[in-house]
């Protein structure tokens, strides 16, 4: 099995993630696009020592991207997960 850090790429500290979701005990994570909800739940519980109630995920297309040399390409696709924790559990925003 992949370890927690391979699944969960990092906590996303953003305006929406912190100010809008903080009150509902929800956190945004950037995760491996290949990971499923169960893997994400396990990884977060394992790494942050918290109890996860729910995981919602969404896929983002990588943005089109152009080098100065007119080489066209894209940023890699990525996946975001909104993880709801049990009331009282908390993740310190580092």
């Amino acid at each position, binding site marked *: 099995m992949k370890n927690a850090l391979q699944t969960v790429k990092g906590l996303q*500290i953003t*305006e929406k993630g*912190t100010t809008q979701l903080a009150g509902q005990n929800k956190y945004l994570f950037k995760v491996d696009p290949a990971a499923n909800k169960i893997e994400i739940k396990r990884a977060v519980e394992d790494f942050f020592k918290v109890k996860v109630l729910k995981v919602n995920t969404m896929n983002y297309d990588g943005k089109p991207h152009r080098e100065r040399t007119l080489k066209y390409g894209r940023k890699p696709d990525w996946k975001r997960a909104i993880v709801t924790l049990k009331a009282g559990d908390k993740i310190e925003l580092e």
Partner: protein
Amino acid sequence: MKVTVEQVNPCRKVLTIEVPADGVATEYRKVVNEFAKHARIQGFRPGKAPAAIAERNFAKEILNETRERLVPVAYREAIGEQKLKPVAVIDVTDVQVAKGMPLTFRVTVDVEPDFALPAYRGIAVKANKVEVKPEDIEQVLGNLRDRQGKFDDNPARVAAKGDIVVIDYAGTCDGKPVAEFAPERAELGQGKDFWVLLLEGHEFLPGIVKALEGATVGQTRELKVVWPADFAVTTLAGHEAIYALTVTMVRERKLPEMDDDFAKAAGATSMDALRDMVRQNLQASAEAAEIGRQKDEILKWLLEQTPLPDLPQSVVEEQARHIIRDVVAENVRRGVTKDQIEAHRDDIFNRAAQSSTDRVRMDYVLSRVAEAETVTVTDAEVDKRIVEMAERHGMPQQRLRADLEKRDGLEALKRSLRLDKTLDLLHGAAAIEPA
């Protein structure tokens, strides 16, 4: 706020200032909020990040800013609390600031010296008699006459003092022309139609005036010159040269008669009026010089009688720097080379150190008197001084004023005017014993 004062010397103090932790915390919070209001952090629109996140992102900057804001405020408060009059902040050291901790730092300051003024009213000064001697007037008139003198060609004239003698000359040294020895100083070798003014102190060859006195047109005189061993032209130094001087013309000096025409040329109606004018001028300048001397004496007395052993070092050094700059600028203006100035470096520095001490001491004593007597300087007086200065320097007063403003000269000007007025006041209050 806790302040402890250590005295390093009578004019230098070290303050150790501690701002309590809650005071620091309040200011810190304020700074954090201000940072949050403008912070650009990824994931947030500018200024929308929560304070906690902004604080984490800009921890170092926020601490710096807190320190920058607290130190001057705390310093001013401490100065007020201790009733100190600092003249210069030497340095600020050991600044310790951390979140939730008291802020501590040490400031080294120079303070005004503390001293008591002697009784400065009624300083006894002996006046010298100011009188214009008739010979002084005659001397001035003589100078005027000399200046109006004219020179006319007079081939029959026997050259006398004051005349101009036109000569051709050539010098030989050890049988060879002098020009061979000093090709770069051709005028030492030979010359044609050379004008020699027969006055001591105007000799381009030593002894030439004596040699030409009594000569007539067509005569040839011989002049023996022994160059000194330290002569600038080294090839000639220590040698003996013989010059043949052939007189081609004598220009007789004709002095104007001391009559009313002469007086008119000098700007007076008659000879008596001219004498009177000269007397008045001499009298006025002698009186001004006498008053200057009396003021100097008052100052000297005041400085001697005021116990002022220690001066703030920073002020003395600053003053010394000013003096050195002035001396160097003055010398550069007179065409002294950089190397020559560099050679006299120690000398300049020593003298500057001494005179800056005197000047600073005088400044303090006089400003203390000015304070005691509430001497003030009005804008009109400043304007008047600027007009005078502009006239003296021959520059438009607007430009002078702009120049002064650019380098904070107006303040300095005001200060010096104030000291001048104080000195006037002291002079007015002095017990002057008539001669």
